[in-house]
């Protein structure tokens, strides 16, 4: 519940430390960031919250999510953050990030299409031809 009027701050760093939120932060004096990786703001702050907490903003969430979905979302955002850090894409500007991600995804798609898809199709064909082939033979014998 909001006991005080929300204090709006501008964040220094555009992305949240959990790498989910991209907007300006709306912080109240005794609330935490709704994302579960942040601990309560009052732990480190003195009275002047607005000068200190320059984390990212989260849009106030009207629909409460279920626990399982929340955990899944947390996990995925954590994985995304690890990907950004390990590949050093964290340091790039947004257009560079888009370029890198698109190149990576297209490379992965090409590998999938030219390498894995024929293998998959061949295996599937082998499996299903065995099934259908067997049925036809038995039908023929019954008819004759």
């Amino acid at each position, binding site marked *: 519940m909001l006991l005080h009027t929300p204090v709006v701050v*501008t964040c*220094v*760093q555009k992305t949240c*430390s959990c790498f989910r939120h991209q907007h300006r932060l709306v912080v109240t004096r005794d609330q935490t960031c709704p994302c579960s*990786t942040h*601990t309560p703001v009052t732990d*480190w*702050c*003195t009275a*002047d919250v*607005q*000068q*200190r*907490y*320059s*984390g990212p903003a989260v849009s106030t969430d009207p629909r409460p999510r279920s626990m399982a979905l929340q955990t899944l979302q947390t996990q995925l955002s954590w994985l995304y*953050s*690890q990907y*950004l*850090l*390990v*590949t*050093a*894409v*964290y*340091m*790039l*500007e947004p257009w*560079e990030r888009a370029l*890198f991600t698109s190149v990576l995804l297209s490379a992965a798609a090409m590998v999938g299409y030219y390498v894995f898809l024929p293998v998959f199709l061949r295996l599937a064909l082998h499996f299903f031809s065995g099934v259908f082939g067997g049925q036809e033979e038995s039908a023929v014998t019954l008819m004759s």
Partner: protein
Amino acid sequence: MTSRPHTSEDTSVFQLPGAFCYRLNMTESSSNKLLNGDACQRSSKDKKSGKNGFVKNHCLFQQPQKYRRPREKNHNVVRNPSLYNKPFVESYEETPLLVAVLTYMGYGILTIFGYLRDFMRHWNIEKCSVARERDEQKDFVPLYQDFENFYTRNLYTRIRDNWNRPLCGVPGSKMDIVEQVSHDYNRTFQNTGKIMRDVINMGSYNYLGFAENVGQCADAAIQVTEQYGSGVCGTRCEMGNLDIHQEMEELVARFLGVESALTFGMGFATNSMNIPALAGKGCLILSDELNHASLVLGARLSGSTIRVFKHNNMVSLEKLLRDAIVHGQPRTHRPWKKLLIVVEGIYSMEGSIVRLPEVIALKKRYKAFLYLDEAHSIGALGPNGKGVVDYFGLDPKDVDIMMGTFTKSFGAAGGYIGGKRELIQYLRAHSHSAVYATSMPPPVAQQIITSMTTIMGEDGTSLGADRLRLLSENTTYFRRKLREMGFIIYGNDDSPVVPMMLYMPAKIGAFGREMLKRNIGTVVVGFPATPIIESRARFCVSAAHTRETLDVALKAIGEVGDLLQLKYSRHQPTVTPGLGWMSEESYLQD
């Protein structure tokens, strides 16, 4: 000559560390070998050491005979344990292979994007706001094409908001930082107008907590400013020599335990301007691999030959000394005019302490001079705060030139050199810094005097002893907790400089920003101050930190470590939860 097999008395010579009689034995045994080469039974040591078969290995510090694949770099093996009166524990855990591979991959991706951006800037697709040659200079030798400039343009600038943060108060245990924001990806910064108050300071070299604007030191400095003013307007040779400078020099000499001392206005200038006065052409400087830039600059300015030995590695140093004595100067083979060994007390990027007893043993054996730079260790090590010499319990007269700075533990600025009276008299006349540089301002000199008397306990209070004890307790606690959390920490267990490994380039920027979000100011270091994959965050523990402050900092470091996956250490920490209080007590006894 009868054939005489090698008896054990030949090999027993190098069991005695001080024995200098190897020359006699060498000629005798070499003559034996000449005449009776194949008839003699050789011991295993002779087989190993002789290229020509005649030179025996009489080194003080021997290489290990067997090759073992090192799990950790071999720095924590003490070769001569009899020289140390307390355990010397250093550790440099090896980089995990996966982390190294991923770090190189990250740098590779950044390099590709760096080339892309340089290409765009060159073809004017993107507006260029970095340093660039003018059109008239395009055919000259390029200025900005080397790797350092490429790194600065494309990697450093992206995370530049972690450095040069402006403070607007005393950098004590907590500080105030002016908040800055950048709208064009760190090319320019604007103040938001807000100030971040009470940011926990884990980066200042404030080892004994003398960075304060209240208290005895500050009052004395104010009084002296009212008496002398704040500027000196002259060099020591001319009208800039105040009585407060002489009082300070006498105090410094008494503190260090040397005959005489000389002080300078700037610590960097102390090294870079005095080494040229001490060494010149025809001298040999043996300097450690990881020496500070001021020592490297001073050695290069002096014009002497410089040879570098591996970091804190006494075997490497001994080999260089022996080669220098045996072979002499490069072409003429004349003996060197002097041999100067240049080491530091605490190396601030590694957190390691020099193996001073071994260096002194080597220096005495091979008749070299020792220049010890105690920038970080003076005031921070030793039961009385007198530096690394005090820490090992050695005699200050063994170190020929003791240099240090007042910037770190004394809360002032400047440097000093201490040694014999003749040396200091010579430096007063021949050092560039003493002759040409402006002398120290009076309030700074008074700060040094007050803080030094406090540390020595001569002001009547026990403040100095309390601070020294607090510093060593905080150091032990902080290092132990970080190790238990699973981070890779480099360096000696007693050094207040704690480097924590980050490795990956994105984590350098992420760590600095995340810690600032949690209200803690840290220093992160990357290339070129460290090797390219070994970037780190460097914490400086202070006597001004209370246990609660350190706990808050440790909690935040733990969180950020989990968030960024920084807990690389593969050692199992030895934690005894039930005996928690007892293990604390055992660490307090030093």
